[in-house]
């Protein structure tokens, strides 16, 4: 049933990357439980605009849980309390009248705050640039059915490829590690026959880049898996470790 609720929001406000930030309090009144979390923020921002105050900056785009643009930590949990849900798909029916919500940006050394809840996640693109691909120039591909791939393998690759690169795994990890993101990408490509020729070089280069970008190490806390909106499994981290070991011990890649 649709109803309206009132909430107290404590939202991180920060003018820019170098400015100090602080939690500011807002009253969100008359919020329909059918709204998405971001629609609730829209309503708050419309009211701020009409009061002549600057709205809260937050990243968002597709609002259907696939682009990976949105995300904030709600009461200590990336993308809020619902399992397997991005912030844009989280609906207000999961909150109760009178709740207080603390809303913060992703916090990690590798993700600088740009403004309020908006962070710079370009480090994740940089990791892809050093090896998160299969080198196949346009034009030279053989027929798509030339290499049969067992359905199970294709499914496992797809499970890994479903990562939306929102960064929640990094925000959830006490070490701000990007191992789940990296594990998913390395797994997706290493599982497929097309990805094998570059597997060793890819694993070595991407791990090196991750370390240089200031992400922490994995210490098996499993927070990433628990908070991932696409429920990517940490099996992918195990696979990454195997690929990395194979690269460093069994291959000539350094």
């Amino acid at each position, binding site marked *: 049933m649709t109803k309206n609720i009132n909430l107290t929001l404590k939202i991180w406000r920060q003018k820019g990357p170098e400015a100090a930030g602080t939690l500011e309090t807002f009253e969100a009144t008359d919020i329909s439980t059918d709204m998405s979390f971001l629609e609730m923020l*829209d309503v708050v921002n419309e009211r701020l*605009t009409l009061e002549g105050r600057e709205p809260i900056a937050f990243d968002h785009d597709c609002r259907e849980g696939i682009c990976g643009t949105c995300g904030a930590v709600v009461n200590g949990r990336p993308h809020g309390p619902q399992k397997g849900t991005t912030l844009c798909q989280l609906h207000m029916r999961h909150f109760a009248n009178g709740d207080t919500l603390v809303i913060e940006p992703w916090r990690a050394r590798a993700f600088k705050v740009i403004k309020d809840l908006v962070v710079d996640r370009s480090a994740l693109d940089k990791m892809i640039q050093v090896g998160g691909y*299969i080198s*196949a120039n346009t034009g030279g591909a053989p027929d*798509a059915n030339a290499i049969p791939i067992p359905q199970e393998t294709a499914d496992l*690759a797809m499970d890994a490829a479903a990562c939306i690169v929102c960064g929640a795994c990094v925000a959830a990890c006490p070490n701000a590690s990007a191992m789940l993101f990296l594990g998913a990408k390395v797994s997706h*490509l290493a599982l497929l026959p097309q990805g094998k020729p570059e597997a060793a070089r890819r694993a070595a280069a991407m791990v090196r880049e991750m370390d240089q970008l200031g992400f922490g190490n994995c210490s098996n806390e499993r927070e990433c898996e628990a908070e991932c909106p696409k429920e990517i499994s940490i099996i992918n981290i195990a696979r990454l470790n195997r690929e990395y070991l194979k690269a460093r011990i069994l291959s000539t890649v350094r």
Partner: protein
Amino acid sequence: MQLDAKIPGGPLAQKWDRHRFELKLVNPANKRKYDIIVVGTGLAGGAASASLAELGYNVKTFCIQDSPRRAHSIAAQGGINAAKNYTNEGDSIWRLFYDTVKGGDFRAREANVYRLAQISNNIIDQCVAQGVPFARDYGGLLANRSFGGAQVSRTFYDRGQTGQQLLLGAYSALMRQVGLGKVQMFPRREMLDLVVANGQARGIVVRNLITGQIETHAAHAVVLCTGGYGNVFFLSTNAMASNVSASFKAYKRGAYFANPCFTQIHPTCIPVHGTYQSKLTLMSESLRNDGRVWVPKKPGDNRAPQQIPEDERDYYLESKYPSFGNLVPRDVASRNAKEQCDMGKGVGETKLAVYLDFADAIKRDGREAIERKYGNLFQMYEKITGEDPYETPMMIYPAVHYTMGGLWVDYNLMSTIDGLFVLGEANFSDHGANRLGASALMQGLADGYFVIPYTIGGYLASTSFSSVTPDTAAFKDTAREASDRIEKLLRINGKRTVDDFHRQLGQIMWDYCGMARNNQGLEKARGMIQELRAEFWQNATVPGEEKDFNQSLERAGRVADFMEFAELMVIDALARQESCGGHFNEAYQTEENEARRDDENFCHVAAWSHSGPDKDPEFHKEPLIFENVELTQRSYK
């Protein structure tokens, strides 16, 4: 100006081969002397950037998102068509070509569509080589499913995330070129204007969305891959940032805008539920493979769906269109849903919805099989509505989804401005008046991987360029105009928010230029848009500062362009006195309420050129000549 589509001569099946041979080539060693700007990083822009860089051109690529991987192509769910005929059902390049021309209600160019069908097979090969994990059968070969408007299964898919996986393929190829130093990537940049010097597109003006700085970039050619304009309706399935601004600025600089009134209303979306709603969510058309669309036979029947017995349900698509059933093309399915709701048979709280029921499919194939095919879609539905589609039928209603209109381009995908190429949804070229499902991904990738790499070479090799740098007057003047406009927006200081204006504009467009249109309503809408636009510039409020991360300012610029563009759509809809595909003028329908074309008078592309502020645009006609298919009344019975 006489529009010359530059369609090569010779038989249809040989045009593209012949054209590729006739196009001049740029010597491999000379390619590095050319700079190319690509705006947008969806399937078209990502694929074009990567492919052009692989050839050796210097590419500068821009996107408004924080990462090129987030462009809205990512949200496409159901699949991508190709004429592989892996299923042995009798598919062929010719059949895909024919289905696409017919599905588009005979308002697309034969030569372009045929080329698209030819290229479709290369796309699947290329994507598999990149590691796109398409669905496969137990034997390890690729799986297919069917989509609307076709009687063969030719759609390749990655669960319900095909757009995401194809985009990740193009993005990974793009990232590889960034790593190799052949592409310079500029994320969080919004194109504010096109720079035209000596009649050639030579650069762009962008705003750095983090710092608010205006930047200028020069090149030998500009490739726009900036998507469609569905957000003119405020509520659509487009992403929040999708906008018409880049295309519209190009239009104002001399590019013609073709068929702007051709918009696609997708039949299976989650219905609207409140005024605060920010966007609509699509449920993939692939669901119509197994879901059955129905409404209660009796208007105003308020019983829960499970309590309505079989003989009191109207499976209206199955009874009206026995050969295509639930898989009729999108425009037909949408109009029929509207018709049922107009008769009072709509369901749900708002009565603006119909059921999409999986009970029979679950009984037939088991829950697991359905979960395997549509799991993520069912989950998405459940998250948004709080209802479980495994237990109770989905409720769906049509919503704005795609725009077939776009900047006019010739066979080389070049607009009426020399050196300005337009790819993907941003151009008008391949889908006529209605796009078939799983064809948008096909077109975006065809344009980016397999068309622009050849045609841009032909242009560069046959054009002489003077030296144009960001210091020249053309750049300085265009940049100044862009910052003047920003200042003007920030100075309005009125009392209504930009979103409030946008919502009202969207309502006007939905009511009068949506699923069904009539002349009286369109005339009225035109006046309403003009009034609203005047009020916008008097009474909008845009908080924040220019030289800062300012999302309100970003939106204000986009909505200001939608306010002007909306009128162009209405003008185009008024000029086209027929019904075809997504453009349904109530005065022109068959006895069975299907769109009635007027091939004698309207078998053409309507291309509009800008005539200056507050002046009516000028109309130009590109006649459509059909040499290979016979124009018939579309029938899906």
